């Protein structure tokens, strides 16, 4: 792997940058691997990376139906935070946040993790109660999260409209300072590069079309559009397509795939220092390093695999943005798009073994799994390597829906990003 640094950049500059080599090897599939990961998004690539890095496994393939990380990894609003309510979730997301904090260095790839803080704005007395509950729960879990008055929130984020005369005045906000954003593509590319360097095969434009089973029902590999690939273990990390892929093994999941939309403004000079989320009036916004306002819109209500939705959804979001930040009304939408999110009934993920031996699944991240990318990858790798979950992801099973032990962050907080 070519080392990335200011020095190597300078050296290459002298040669007109002709000396750079592919960041990952995009290869044709071999007939067999020890482990096949289905889905080359951030989660799948990260899983392969940690399998290689932490568990010493090398004979691994990541199979991606399209271009690498072209799913939700390419299309999310990049909010990273760990201030979730329940112990189970917060320890999962905090595990991830800790990995984020060193990811650029670990991967030798600048993923631009920018810990600019995340303000969650409260508009009602109920919001205040809920957010304070988060603040207290987080503090005792060792996760930073603090309560700010409306004035303090404005000081932290000057564009915020805290006038008492707006329809839903801002009553205060919780702030996780360690929260932030990262360059979404870079995360996937960084994992791909590092994994590839350790021998992982990255196979693009290869769609898994079937899951091969042995006589005992155990996994034997996958059928793909590029032929049969045998494998002792298969880890599925297909986000919006999880139901489709798992359906090939006869497993129904508690998932619904919905379009989730996002948009960016034209770029402007730095005007927004942090991330602001308002669950009550549905607005999520931050400004990228390039200058666009990155804005998360809502979910279309129906199942769809089209990666697009209705214009009324982003329009509704922009109403909220304009209300909270009336000086941004004259900014303009540059591009809007959709992704396919896989949502569970309790809005918490599944990272687990399945009833099929040798088949593992990491899914249900819905509208909020970018932040979990290194964490989920790390724990999914553990689960596959050891054939048992790590204590952190142990509660995140499929069976929790049967047993009634849901981890319902949404019900507790009405938020999933």
């Amino acid at each position, binding site marked *: 792997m070519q080392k990335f640094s200011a020095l190597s950049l300078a050296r290459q500059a002298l040669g007109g940058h002709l000396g750079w080599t592919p960041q990952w090897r995009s290869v044709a599939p071999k007939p067999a691997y020890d482990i096949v990961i289905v889905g080359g998004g951030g989660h799948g690539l990260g899983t392969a990376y940690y399998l290689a890095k932490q568990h010493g496994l090398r004979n691994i393939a990541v199979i991606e139906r399209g271009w690498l990380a072209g799913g939700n990894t390419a299309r999310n609003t990049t909010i990273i935070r760990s201030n979730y309510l329940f112990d189970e979730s917060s320890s999962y997301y905090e595990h991830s946040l800790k990995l984020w904090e060193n990811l650029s260095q670990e991967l030798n790839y600048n993923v631009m993790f920018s810990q600019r803080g995340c303000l969650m704005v409260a508009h009602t007395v109920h919001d205040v109660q809920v957010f304070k509950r988060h603040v207290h729960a987080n503090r005792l879990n060792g996760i930073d999260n603090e309560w700010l008055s409306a004035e303090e929130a404005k000081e932290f984020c000057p564009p915020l409209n805290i006038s008492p005369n707006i329809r839903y005045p801002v009553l205060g906000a919780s702030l996780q300072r360690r929260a932030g954003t990262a360059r979404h593509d870079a995360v996937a590319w960084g994992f791909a590069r590092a994994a590839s360097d350790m021998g992982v095969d990255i196979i693009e434009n290869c769609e898994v079309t079937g899951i091969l089973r042995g006589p005992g029902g155990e996994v034997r590999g996958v059928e793909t559009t590029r032929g049969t690939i045998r494998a002792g273990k298969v880890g599925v990390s297909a986000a919006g397509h999880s139901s*489709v892929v798992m359906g090939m093994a006869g497993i*129904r999941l*508690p998932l*619904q*795939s919905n379009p989730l939309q996002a948009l960016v403004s034209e770029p402007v000079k730095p005007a927004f220092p942090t991330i602001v989320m308002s669950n009550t009036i549905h607005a999520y916004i931050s400004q990228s390093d390039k200058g666009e306002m990155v804005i998360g819109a809502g979910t279309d209500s*129906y199942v769809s695999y*089209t990666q697009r939705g*209705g214009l009324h959804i982003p329009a509704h979001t922009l109403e909220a943005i304009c209300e909270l930040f009336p000086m941004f009304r004259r900014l303009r939408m540059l591009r809007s798009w959709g992704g396919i999110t896989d949502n569970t009934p309790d809005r918490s993920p599944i990272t687990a073994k399945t009833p099929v031996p040798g088949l593992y699944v990491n899914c249900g991240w819905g509208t909020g799994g970018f932040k979990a990318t290194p964490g989920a990858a790390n724990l999914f790798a553990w689960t596959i390597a050891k054939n048992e979950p790590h204590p952190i992801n142990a509660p995140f099973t499929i069976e929790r829906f049967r047993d009634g032990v849901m981890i319902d962050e949404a019900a507790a907080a009405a938020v999933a990003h």
Partner: protein
Amino acid sequence: MLLIRCPYCGDRAEIEFANGGEAHIARPADPMTQTDEEWAQYLYMRDNPKGLIAERWRHAHGCNRFFNALRDTRTDRFVTTYEMGQPRPEIDAAAAAEAAR
């Protein structure tokens, strides 16, 4: 914004409707006789198909009736809508192909 044909009111814009998830998942007649596994299947497990889905809609801001629809989730094209209680319509290959287009 989808255009949805309410069986009672005709074509209306999606914002008048509420989606009700997959259709034809009948509530067991006697839930207490269900195993935990069966109950979870009823309550949570879904086909979530990539392709034709039978789904429920309620004309929430119109006649307030639930009805069913057959739609292709790859294209969001509707094949048909039909009243609650009717079975899922059989459709021919041409209609399916048209919906998939």
